[in-house]
């Protein structure tokens, strides 16, 4: 069964917390990974890879640059 966007957001927030120690409550849909959460390109790749494993989806490397906000990533994963 497909996960709801809320469920994806919760799972993604856990991954972000694991990689960066940012509080899960800070990881909200409108936040920019780079500008708001200060996540660099290598941490972003780690988050993407862990999300691929957790949600059993594939996120091509060339797609990662389009995932500007947490919401972008949630939408991509939920619709994959």
């Amino acid at each position: 069964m497909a996960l709801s966007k809320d469920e994806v957001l919760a799972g993604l927030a856990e991954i972000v917390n694991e990689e960066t120690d940012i509080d899960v409550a800070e990881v909200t849909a409108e936040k920019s990974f780079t500008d708001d959460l200060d996540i660099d390109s290598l941490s972003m790749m780690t988050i993407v890879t862990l999300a691929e494993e957790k949600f059993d989806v594939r996120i091509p490397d060339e797609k990662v640059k389009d995932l500007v906000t947490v919401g972008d990533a949630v939408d991509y994963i939920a619709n994959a």
Partner: protein
Amino acid sequence: MTTLNVRRGAEFTRILGLGVARGENLVPNDDLIEPINSSDEWIRKMTGIATRVRAGKDTSVIDLSERAARDAIAQAGLEPSDIDAVILSTITFPHITPGGAPVLADRIGATPAAAFDISAACAGYCYGIGQADALVRSGAARHVLVVGAEKMSDFVDPADRSISYLLGDAAGAVVIGASETAGIGPTVWGSDGGGAELIGQTSSWLDVRDNPGTPFPTLRQEGPSVFKWASFKMAPVALQAIEAAGVAPDDIQVFIPHQANVRIIDQMVKQIGLPEHVVVAKDIVDSGNTSAASIPLATERVLRDGDARSGDLALQIGFGAGLVYAAQVVVLP
């Protein structure tokens, strides 16, 4: 029917001696930040590198190789004439032909040893160890000199933010020979040419010839993609090498990965699940990424610093442009 003789070699091999040569100049981040509009802090955060070793203009990749090779042969208690094969792993010997290995063999006095180059970039040292191990066990050679050597600074672009600032110049050499016990585990190796575009030179030599104004080729990488591949895809390879050697992660005393980036090394340790007691080589902090030389350099460093001892069991893994990779468990010399 005529039958041909076949050779049989030693049952086991090990690393008999190790030598290294680092570029003579220690280059701090501050010397490189202006053309890439960056900072010492950013380079340390993204790579863990504080300085890299670079050779002067008049020092060649063969010069570095010779210094490392002579020390390796001496530590093995051998003479250059005892070497039957020379394998030089490099991507920076600046000739399409001849190879650098025959030149090196002649320079050190190992002629007429068999001599050839391998182009396996940052995996080249582990590729060379795998070949040397096989050559000695097959009887094709008694003593094989394996050298990983690079003068990366000849192929960097000071304005490149993808890879140039990581790179250093050095050579690391080992002599592989027969042993009474197994000192080199099975090599787990492979390639993925689907990722050939991720690390390489900016243009081919034919582009330079055919398109006037094409800049001299330098190195580039798709950093985040390479990070992802190395950090997550290489852990299973490392685990296969441990399993192939018939040991467990708990038995490993030292982890010596290619010194590509501290962030990659840290993620690999996590993904492999190495126990906390394992010493993790991080010579990259001071020497930078020296491609094929980085693993022997890091090996020399953990031994010199007293973090590891001769006889320790080390997991080594090289990975890089190709994409190519190779890993094996070895007993440190």
